[in-house]
């Protein structure tokens, strides 16, 4: 037991040293890059994708039609097409969850599956909030799966970073969705987010006024603190809590009415 503990301690210390070394090299790479400026300039004419192995360019593999299909799917989603939503969930739910798990590991904070599912739900909610505003940024210049791959990682890292900066808040609010859904499980909102009717969630948010929608998005989806919301929206910080309580009531009422 003691030997095992010492071995683990030694391994942990070794990992720490390795991480510090990598951090130093990351910092140093910013300084040495200046010496490579001329080489970078000489590269500037090179196309990004000369090789196709092992990531075939969609353009080279009939990808144009696939991109058109992806754009059509996003267009149908933004119109509230329920079949499109089912298709999206079927095709991309697993990709987003896996991407969240990978991002958390890369962040040095591996998540258990239930936590990853919570974070996945937050990411999906952010994608569809405001009438699919974020998803509609997809322009079809890549496949939807590659776009989701990059966007999901960024959103996951942002939320993990917020939680690490303010663990007390994270402990108080283990999941924004849990809080929204209330003590009964699964709550209507969580059901919508995890289930097949996510388009109805967007409908619920759309029923809020513009100001309330902004606040809900900043708090639940972007992970902003009361102070950050106060600064961004020029509101008194002590008014954020009561306003959020009213928003929750309205969302619950709206979603509860829709769920027998």
């Amino acid at each position: 037991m003691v030997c095992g503990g010492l071995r683990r301690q030694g391994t942990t210390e070794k990992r720490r040293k390795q991480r510090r070394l990598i951090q130093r090299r990351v910092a140093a790479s910013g300084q040495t890059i200046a010496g490579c400026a001329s080489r970078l300039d000489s590269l500037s004419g090179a196309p990004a994708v000369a090789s196709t192995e092992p990531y075939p360019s969609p353009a080279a593999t009939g990808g144009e039609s696939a991109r058109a299909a992806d754009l059509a799917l996003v267009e149908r989603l933004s119109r509230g097409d329920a079949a499109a939503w089912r298709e999206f969930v079927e095709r991309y739910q697993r990709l987003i969850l896996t991407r969240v798990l990978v991002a958390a590991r890369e962040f040095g904070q591996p998540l258990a599956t239930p936590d990853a599912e919570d974070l996945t739900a937050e990411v999906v909610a952010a994608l569809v909030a405001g009438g699919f505003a974020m998803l509609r940024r997809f322009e079809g210049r890549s496949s939807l799966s590659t776009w989701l791959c990059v966007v999901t990682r960024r959103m996951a890292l942002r939320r993990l970073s917020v939680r690490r900066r303010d663990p007390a808040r994270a402990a108080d609010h283990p999941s924004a969705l849990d809080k929204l859904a209330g003590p009964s499980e699964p709550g209507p909102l969580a059901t919508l987010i995890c289930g097949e009717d996510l388009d109805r969630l967007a409908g619920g948010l759309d029923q809020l006024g513009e100001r309330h929608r902004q606040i809900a998005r900043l708090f639940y989806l972007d992970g902003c603190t009361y102070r950050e919301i106060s600064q961004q929206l020029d509101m008194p910080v002590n008014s954020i809590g009561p306003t959020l309580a009213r928003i929750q009531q309205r969302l619950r009422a709206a979603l509860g009415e829709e769920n027998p």
Partner: protein
Amino acid sequence: MNPQVPDILKLLSWSQRLAAGEPCAECQAWREQSPDAEWQWPRIALAGEMLEAGLARDEDMEQTAEDVAAWIDGGLDKSQAAATTKSCWQSPAQLAEVASAASFRAESTLLA
């Protein structure tokens, strides 16, 4: 353009092969012959090590997510692609983001 010059995605795929314990003669030859290898390969290796060591961070990237995704799929025009390439070489975080996405895509392709 010299067709022998590997781009970032090619270098990342070589890096992944080596990390998996597979031999890569092309990579070895490039590292021995190309003057660029001296400064490019350490950055490629560093990106992989950052991800492996759990050092990825939420940083403001110069490139938008849309541009990065399009760059990976070859959907950018020449000047946009060049800007993204340059950004990858300048920013370890940007290169790590691309490495992460490329690795994920490669694994997904293998699983598909």
